[in-house]
């Protein structure tokens, strides 16, 4: 009767589709004031003067904060986001930085007044060119067990990767570039902050509510236990709600200063510069192989644009979990660099290293297949890895070969149209690529509580960023307790709950599911303990091993069975609960952990005007146990759509002035329905019990990796044109 692995509708679906779900910006509190930010309009320099008189005198305005009349704020703890605090100095680090906050009685008044603030600057020329700054400096160390940003594994007797390449019978080399990209989650960043008795409650979108609370407390200079972050509904994140951006602390500090709740909802344009984005990156991949396609050398270098150290960011390392793990090769060299620029903050975005990295290596593999005149699928099978090239470790579980085979069959790879097939006005081509994504496991705590109304609460301070995590709590709770989904009450998105797994790295489900099982087991033990020790219990006096729990009942055989609700009522107990902790064990140091997949697609390019359109897509993945089939399909479809955007549409050029030129949803193009074909999705559902006893590795990001390469490879197949600079727009295909 378990629903694990079946199609389960979201338990919060009706709330979301009927508008009853209250997202952060939907909160309306008594006496609430509204804030609007003022952003810098130069790319680098210093504020000379600001005139806030008109704004301060505008109708409804309560206060105008600037570096001249600041709110006291501190930088977030190192690694939690930016390295500075807004409003504390007059430096302009990037264009679109917060330089003011206007708080008024209504949203309209705050916005109107914000437009009345004028600023004089001493401007400097920002440095904005990734190409001019390349090659950059070796990326900072990722710490804790992460491979170094630069390393090489060479075969005995080989002295350098260049030597290995030179000794290869066939080599290909390509430089792959892409500009800035944005998460553009549907919900713009929004905060409602309210203080009571020296304690702050902040309603805001958070991928890790507790980390948000810690960071926010540090920015406000208060103890962490005085801050509670509530994030029950999140309108998408994709990495944009891992760090706290200045909006949350600004709203919270203003609420304290004005002694009333404050709401701050960023305008869409403001999200583009205030929230870290995926930076531009240039990657060079060199492959050396024998004439029959056996890899001898893989070299992957990257230069990533980075607003370090003045702004701060997360460090992109695109090669290590792609080229570092995908193929068997005796010689491997990885060299990941950063180029410091004056630009808005950058951050991890869905498939943060692997989506860009996968585009580079999987395009290069296609270039190798073309130059070998070899089926690109055969080339990949020929170089199939059974240990990770970078670390030499075996995988906890790897069924990529089945992904290739199943995908090829579903797509009809062997009977695909020949290169350069023409269908009316359209050139038709096919392409494929591999998906890979590291399977991290994080420590997590889960509390399970039996209640006397027959329901059970499953609670953990993880987040549901639109992925279906709250439904996962229900499914796993129902599975572990043997009660229907409707009798499980899932709770997350609250920093006051037991420390949950972060909703990052596709690891929320994988980290939480096994701990729900342990917590359920612990709660069952506590329930049996109550049953045998409470004098009002019919099981009183028995030993614990005489009472079994199954499907919501305690059972001592011979017809002595009772539902837990009745037991709790008889004993006058409101609830029985237990909290369990779980996390990676010693296996973490012995195995490589990745999820895998194979993409196959067909693309049509117009033979007159060039525009490429994806017409068919098949993705098969190996992610371990599947918890919710419906949510899994949605994640994979969504990831492929990310790949379509990555390949064909998404870019925000950084101008010489430091201005992001497409910082709005009119100019920053994400795929619309018409861009998306039917996406055929399949998974293998083979449990990875080395990763965790539950066996589920997670699926959120995997299919964003390689999907763009599959599309680019199909475009090459259709048109004969290899585009190495994303997005692949029609002007690059006019020939």
């Amino acid at each position: 009767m378990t629903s694990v692995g079946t199609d389960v509708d979201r338990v919060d679906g009706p709330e979301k589709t009927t508008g009853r779900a209250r997202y952060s910006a939907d909160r309306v509190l008594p006496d609430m004031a509204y804030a609007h930010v003022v952003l810098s309009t130069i790319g680098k320099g210093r504020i000379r003067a600001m005139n806030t008189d008109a704004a301060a005198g505008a109708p409804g305005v309560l206060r105008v904060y600037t570096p001249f009349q600041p709110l006291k704020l501190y930088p977030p703890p190192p690694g939690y986001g930016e390295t500075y605090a807004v409003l504390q100095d007059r430096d302009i680090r990037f264009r679109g930085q917060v330089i003011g906050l206007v708080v008024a009685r209504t949203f309209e008044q705050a916005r109107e007044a914000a437009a009345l603030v004028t600023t004089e600057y001493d401007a400097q020329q920002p440095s904005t060119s990734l190409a001019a700054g390349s090659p950059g400096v070796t990326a900072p160390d990722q710490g804790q067990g992460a491979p170094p940003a630069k390393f090489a594994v060479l075969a005995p007797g080989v002295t350098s990767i260049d030597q290995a390449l030179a000794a290869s019978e066939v080599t290909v080399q390509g430089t792959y570039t892409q500009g800035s990209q944005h998460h553009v989650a549907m919900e713009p960043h929004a905060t409602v902050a309210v203080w009571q008795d020296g304690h702050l409650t902040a309603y805001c979108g958070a991928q890790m509510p507790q980390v948000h609370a810690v960071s926010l407390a540090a920015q406000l200079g208060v103890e962490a236990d005085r801050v509670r972050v509530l994030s029950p509904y999140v309108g998408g994140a994709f990495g944009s709600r891992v760090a706290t951006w200045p909006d949350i602390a600004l709203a919270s500090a203003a609420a304290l200063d004005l002694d009333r709740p404050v709401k701050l909802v960023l305008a869409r344009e403001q999200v583009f510069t205030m929230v870290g984005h995926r930076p531009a990156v240039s990657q060079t991949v060199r492959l050396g192989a024998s004439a029959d396609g056996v890899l001898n050398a893989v070299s992957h270098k990257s230069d990533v644009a980075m607003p370090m150290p003045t702004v701060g960011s997360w460090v992109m390392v695109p090669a290590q979990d792609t080229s570092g793990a995908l193929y068997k090769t005796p010689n491997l060299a990885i060299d990941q660099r950063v180029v410091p620029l004056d630009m808005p903050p950058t951050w991890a975005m869905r498939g943060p290293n692997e989506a860009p990295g996968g585009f580079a290596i999987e395009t290069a593999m296609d270039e190798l297949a073309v130059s070998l005149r070899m089926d690109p699928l055969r080339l990949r099978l020929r170089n199939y890895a059974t240990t990770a090239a970078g670390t030499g470790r075996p995988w906890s579980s790897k069924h990529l070969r089945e992904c290739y085979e199943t995908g090829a069959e579903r797509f009809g790879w062997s009977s695909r149209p020949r290169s350069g097939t023409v269908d009316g006005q359209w050139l038709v081509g096919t392409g494929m690529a591999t998906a890979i994504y590291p399977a991290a496991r994080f420590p997590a705590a889960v509390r399970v509580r039996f209640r006397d109304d027959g329901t059970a609460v499953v609670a953990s301070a993880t987040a549901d960023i639109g992925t279906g995590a709250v439904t996962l709590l229900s499914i796993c709770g129902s599975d572990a307790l043997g009660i229907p989904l409707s009798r499980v009450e899932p709770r997350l998105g609250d920093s006051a709950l037991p420390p949950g797994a972060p909703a990052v790295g596709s690891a929320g489900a994988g980290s939480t599911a096994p701990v729900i099982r342990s917590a359920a087991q612990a709660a069952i033990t506590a329930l049996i303990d109550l049953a045998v020790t409470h004098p009002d219990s019919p099981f009183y006096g028995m030993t614990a091993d005489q009472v079994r729990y199954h499907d919501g009942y305690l059972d001592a055989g011979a017809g002595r069975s009772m539902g837990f609700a009745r037991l709790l009522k008889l004993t006058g107990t409101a609830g029985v609960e237990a909290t369990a902790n779980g996390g990676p064990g010693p296996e973490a140091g012995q195995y490589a952990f990745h999820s895998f997949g194979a993409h196959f697609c067909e693309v049509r390019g117009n033979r007159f005007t060039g525009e490429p359109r994806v017409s068919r897509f098949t993705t098969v993945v190996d992610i371990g146990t599947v918890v919710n089939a419906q949510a899994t399909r949605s994640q994979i479809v969504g990831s492929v759509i990310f790949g379509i955007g990555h390949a064909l549409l998404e870019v925000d050029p950084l101008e010489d002035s430091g201005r992001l030129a497409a910082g709005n949803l009119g100019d920053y193009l994400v795929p619309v329905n018409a861009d998306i074909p039917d996406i055929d999705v399949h998974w293998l559902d083979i449990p990875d019990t080395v990763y965790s006893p539950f066996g589920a590795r997670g699926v959120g990001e995997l299919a964003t990796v390689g999907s763009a390469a599959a599309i680019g490879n199909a475009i090459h197949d259709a048109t004969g044109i290899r585009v190495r600079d994303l997005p692949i727009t029609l002007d690059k295909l006019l020939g």
Partner: protein
Amino acid sequence: MHAYDFAAPRSIRSAIDRAGGESAYLAGGTTLVDLMKLEVMTPSRVVDINRLPLKGIRVDGNGLRLGALERMSDVARHPGVRSRYPVVAQALELSASQQLRNMASMGGNLLQRTRCGYFRDTSTPCNKRLPGSGCAALTGENRTHAILGTSDSCVATHPSDVAVALVALDAQVELYGPHGRRSLPLGDFYRLPGNTPHLENHLLPRELITGITVPSLSWARHSGYLKVRDRQSYEFALTSAAVALDVSGGVVREARVAVGGVGTRPWRLPAVEQALVGRRTTEAAYEQAVAHAADGARPLAHNAFKPELLRRTLVRALTTVGEL
């Protein structure tokens, strides 16, 4: 957005009386409200014209007449428009989104403002928004900008799709102002930017567009609109072409051709129309006819592909319509 006065008169006369100074008429609001939020348009008074009797779609022997307040979606759906002027219906259906077309009016469409990112961002110079402040697009991101009819002051395209179709069909705009009625060919209604890019058309202060007329053209049944863009839907044109062909015996007798996405106003190509006359309806013949379509183009750093794309857009549109 600033506070503003609001009026919703019931007659054309009183609408004109209420207008003046820094006022703006409000139809569907899909351009006006958007630009007010961005502080690009800052009227002190908004005169809502939605109660005015400016509706009606008429298709008869004289041609087509569209009231200025007809919604894009209603025009696109009209059976007479679809069968006799497919180029108009297609241009509309390839515009914006269904939701926007349900709000947006035909009059407002003709007066929509450019999508140039610098025009829409008050923190950058723009001669169209703030005369004399300069043009950031000349040296900035200009992949989507115009190559025809540009000046050193402005390289912004006129974004309307349906205006391109209407210009190809010799449409007229009917106007009503303080000094009475008049009408102008739509092709002459728009101005080139020159060094006054803030003056976009010949509408007089307080004047209203009341309707659009298209003269009867029997072979407009053989017409079509092609829109080329990065995204399959919900995006403005990189290039577009409105084409109508009068073909008999595999030979073009007459043609109408106008293009969008490339000009500072909807761009009619009379030389291409002439060059098509007498040619066979083959791809090779079309290629010859459009060879000079982009003559005089002034490409910028990021849109150097547009002249070639324009020619190919035309060949594709002609091929498609020629096969009808």
